[in-house]
């Protein structure tokens, strides 16, 4: 179980600085919701933490620097779920899930028994048994999201970074997904998801990072981050924030200037 740390993290695209000197520490077992308006730099931050883009500053996974990890090593520590759910070819659902095992397989070997066991477990957990032989390109939005999540889970990593995994899904699917991520963090893994749905973030994430114009505006428990002030200055909205037995409730009520 590794802690994820960033010190003075900056990322530039051309001569535009997207992220400005970000510091954050994410201990194991966290369920972090990364929120912020469009263009805040959420995707960029996630891709930097996943080791997909160049950055200046430092990112550490456990006691090792991210840059010192080889490609496969890193892939065994961090799993990344891209925003785009585009599948280029009509491969079977089973094959998509199996891709998650690639970092664990030595070159020129077929899947091992362990690989098959993990795939089996994940397929059951995400209720994909009936869909395994189906072509992944012919599924509904919700089914596709489940398949992508299954692939990430099959990768069996300590850290999971998911970029807008709930976008465009029916409410039931959104809730299921958040429940799965929450369960993973309960078992000691680190889960970081970015969201636009403030209501979901408020209710399910144990910690929120509010990102605006490349910097962290607020970092803490949902009720600490989702203050009226923050919502007004960052999102330019007024919202009702309440609580019920299940957790925090947030409903945007109006636009504020």
């Amino acid at each position, binding site marked *: 179980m590794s802690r994820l740390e960033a010190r003075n993290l900056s990322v530039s695209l051309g001569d535009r600085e997207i992220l400005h000197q970000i510091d954050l520490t994410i201990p194991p077992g966290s369920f972090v919701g990364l929120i912020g308006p469009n263009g805040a730099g959420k995707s960029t931050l996630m*891709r930097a933490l*996943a*080791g*997909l883009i160049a950055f200046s500053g430092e990112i550490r996974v456990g006691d090792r620097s991210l840059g010192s990890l*080889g*490609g*496969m*090593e*890193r*892939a*065994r520590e*961090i*799993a*990344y*779920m*891209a925003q*785009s759910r*585009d*599948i*280029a*070819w*009509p*491969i*079977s659902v089973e*094959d*998509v899930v199996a*891709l*998650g095992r*690639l*970092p664990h397989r030595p*070159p020129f070997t077929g899947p091992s028994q362990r690989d098959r066991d993990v795939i089996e477990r994940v397929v059951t957990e995400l209720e994909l048994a009936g869909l395994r032989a189906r*072509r992944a390109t012919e599924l509904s939005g919700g089914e596709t999201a489940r398949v*992508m999540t299954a*692939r990430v889970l099959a*990768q069996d990593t300590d850290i999971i970074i998911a970029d807008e995994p709930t976008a465009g899904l029916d409410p039931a699917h959104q809730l299921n997904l958040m429940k799965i991520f929450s369960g993973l963090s309960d078992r000691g893994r680190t889960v970081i998801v970015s969201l636009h749905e403030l209501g979901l973030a408020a209710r399910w994430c144990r910690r929120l990072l509010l990102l605006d114009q490349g910097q962290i505006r607020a970092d803490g428990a949902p009720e600490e981050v989702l203050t009226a002030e923050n919502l007004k200055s960052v999102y330019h909205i007024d919202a009702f924030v309440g609580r019920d037995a299940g957790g925090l409730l947030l409903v945007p009520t109006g636009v504020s200037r």
Partner: protein
Amino acid sequence: MTIARGYSALMIALVALVLVLMAASLVVGPATITPFEALRALFRSDGAATLVMREIRLPRTLLAVMIGGTLGICGAALQSFLRNPLADSGVLGIGATAALGAVVAIYTGLAAAFPLALPLFALVGAILSVLVVLALGGSAGTTTLILAGIAVASLASALTSLALNLSPSPYAALEIVFWLLGSLSDRSMLHVQLAAPFMILGWLLIAALGRPLDALTLGHDTAASLGFRMSRVRLLLVLGTASCVGAATAVAGSISFVGLVVPHMLRPLVGGKASRLLPASWLGGASLLLAADLAARLVSPAKDLKLGVVTALVGAPFFLALVLKSRGRLT
């Protein structure tokens, strides 16, 4: 599992197809030798017939297999990397630039002095267009990619024709047809020996890309997150395709559409998996080119019907049908 068994069955069927077509290719020719005599002369010293079999028909058959295999596997690799079913070495202009390199080597007399200059120049020519295509890379939509390929191919063909027209040799202007359409007639074992090392190297480099190409099904970011370095994948792809397509073009001219048609037809049969598509497309490409060469020889035995004519007659309508089918999805 049934998927794996289906794949084994497919591969066995393809290997059988290649062997049958090779046998057919060995027994067709203007010399009046019966098929039995022909195959016997291949293995025993039988005078003139052995010369015909070992020095004329065998190299032709081997080159058809090797070049067809090259075009098939490169088409599959390019399509998988670019995540685009409308790519192959012809569409992307790789054959055309390789031909330009080869023409420069031959008509300056360099290839006569140093035989290796021929495949090397073709390889350099091929690299240039692969680099252009990859510079646009995965971020470009289908239309951009195809337009870039057309631009590169047109420029290369024009420069090739120019070079041939400016050449002092009176035969040069007639040979434009060979370079732009391709032909396997009168090739010798010398051509096989010259091209084989480059082709084999190319196949090996591309074969190493099986897993990364599978991962690329889910996009470049996901593939990178699964541990594959995209810059390394790109490098292997550039060097691999340039090496084998370059060598193939250097000895047989530029042949189009094989790499487009074969992966497309075989993809449903391999369950869409890129790593399986690579070897299947090699075998499929070899079969298609063997069949095309047979057709060229049977339809027009007295004249040298260029291979590219046959592959274009099959491939171009296919390409058009593909474009029409994906009308809604082209960006």
